[in-house]
């Protein structure tokens, strides 16, 4: 394969080498290459390959996260060479914006991180709020980034009710129709999702991506 700077950047992202990805992105800008083309074609292709490697069990969570960090660093560098309008268009061209986090009281993040990274690999604009996130923090972030979907993770039986709290908070704020809310995590189930009025439930990271596509109406699975 041709060893162009764009191809080198793609390989650096696949390898999860953040420093190298950033350095190549800087060189690409200096060389006057089109940053939009690099982001839309090469970085997107790199993340698709990373996602495929995860599906084939060649890559694990840390590989996904390292690739995601490398992609973010390269994107940030490349976007610094664009005007604000172009940056806005690129963001708009993403598959959708997702706000995700483990709900109040829940400190477990491995499953949630897997979902966040796989969504990112599939072209979504992912905003990960971390763990122990309250209803208001979810809503504030969803408003800020104009989210399409809010993803709520809960491993424990005793933190599951806080997923319902987020949905109740959205309803009481009159915003229940503005965002699609999906739930997941060790203790949850489809029955639970139905009970609390979530738009969907997924048992694992791969099916969480399918679910997001489904609730956004962007999938053939829908």
């Amino acid at each position, binding site marked *: 394969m041709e060893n162009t700077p764009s191809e080198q950047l793609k390989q650096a992202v696949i390898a999860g080498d953040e420093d190298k990805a950033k350095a190549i992105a800087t060189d690409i800008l200096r060389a006057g290459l089109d940053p939009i083309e690099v982001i839309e074609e090469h970085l997107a292709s790199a993340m698709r390959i990373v996602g495929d490697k995860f599906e084939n069990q060649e890559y694990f969570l840390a590989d996904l996260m390292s690739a995601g960090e490398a992609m973010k660093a390269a994107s940030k560098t490349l976007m610094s060479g664009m005007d604000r309008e172009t940056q806005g268009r690129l963001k708009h061209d993403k598959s959708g914006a997702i706000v995700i986090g483990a709900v109040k009281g*829940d400190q477990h993040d*491995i499953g949630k991180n897997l979902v966040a990274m796989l969504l990112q690999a599939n072209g979504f604009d992912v905003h990960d709020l971390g*763990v122990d996130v309250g209803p208001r923090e979810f809503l504030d972030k969803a408003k800020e980034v104009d989210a399409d979907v809010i993803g709520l993770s809960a491993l424990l039986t005793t933190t599951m009710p806080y997923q319902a709290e987020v949905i109740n908070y959205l309803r009481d704020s009159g915003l229940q129709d503005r965002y699609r809310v999906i739930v997941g995590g060790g203790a949850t189930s489809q029955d639970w999702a139905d009970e609390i009025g979530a738009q969907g439930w997924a048992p694992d990271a791969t099916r969480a991506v399918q679910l997001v596509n489904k609730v956004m109406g962007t999938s053939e699975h829908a």
Partner: protein
Amino acid sequence: MLSFHEVVKRALTGPVCDEKEYDLKLFNRKLTEIVKEYDIKCDLENPIPSDASLARDVFNAALDFYSQVGTYCTDTGRIIKFSEEEIKEAVRTAPSSIELGTGRDQRDFVARNPESKIPPWCSVGGAIPTSSEDLFLSISQARGQIPLATGICMAIPDTVYGMRIMLGTPFEIFAGVRSVVLTKEGLRRAGRPGLPIMNSIAIAVSDVATIASGWALGPGDAYEISAIGEMKVTLSLLNRVAHVLNVGGKIVAGNGPVYGGYCGGAEGTAVAIAAYTFMGQLVQRGVIHHPYPTHYKLIAVNSNRPLLWAQSVGYQAVSRNTHIPVMVNPYVAAGPSAEMRYYEIASTVTTIVVSGGSPELLGHRGGLDLDSPLDLQFGTEVAHAVLGMKTEDANEIVKKLLPKYEDHLSTPPPGKKYQELFDVKTARPLEEHYREYMRYKKAISEYGIPVD
């Protein structure tokens, strides 16, 4: 051993580290490097290895690894680090036997070696399944009636007094007390009032609920305190440890390394299983090492080939090189009463017991009341049937059992609910379920596990 005060001090003053840096650049990177450095390689063709030098290498790799990465405190953003000497001293001074239970149900939980003829500890229950509040008593009684059970792991009620239980609210405390009261009553009805509760109060997760409802437990019971993955603690967790140490309780140090998570593959998971022993001693102050490894895609499952290898090697690393008791959750994919479930239980329990561990047999994840104490009874029978079995022989048996289920792990049968399998009033299995259990036992005994 290093004092717990010193551990807390290090949580408050240790090296500062960003959490993502700890996950990726410290934990995952060091583990990957160490697996290479010690040349640890998984052999999927042999899920139960017999090589003592492999166990030694994994133990040394774990020691090297833990002395470099320590434990991360998420509240303070600091690393609690230990020297190799401090870790070795903790292992050297750990107890090898713990007295649990009371009266006729009093037993010693003893550390075992691979191929040991010492009967394993058999805890039954598990905190994964959620039980309806109105079935909780019957399920507890049914668990207590399992003849080979030496301990009980309390279930998690879905409600208390009809209210949904939320962490950090008074309902968590009410649920903590009520679950102990109902479990003890169930054990009394089973004629085994002294059977120890092994997981303290599964529903009480916060420090305040643990402390506020802990009075309901007795002196023969144990407190489970589990690390957050991977190798992390919160100040709340340390508060719980401080409480149990102050009341003279016994801690089961839980940990759930995730295959495919920051541990990477089977080799990293095996090293992490062993390394968690050190964290369990020093940070969680455990008297029992309690791993429950899981899979990143299959979620609460460890009956698959890579995880059987990782478990066998990890438990052999601990049991051949320390005298610390090990209790493990065999996580299976198929639901209660499904034939596949019995093959999975046979594989995982055999792997655990011949590798020097003891099983804590579980209900099922995935829905309310998905539970059959008869399935758990089968697990205890397997644990006793493979006593003294050579690892080479166990390996051959598990190799024959795996093809019965490994292609179906991502699409397992969901199984049935407790009330479909048991008479709720008598807490006894329904005839059809019992017949199936006998049929499965006969089939599995033909593989070389004499359970019939």
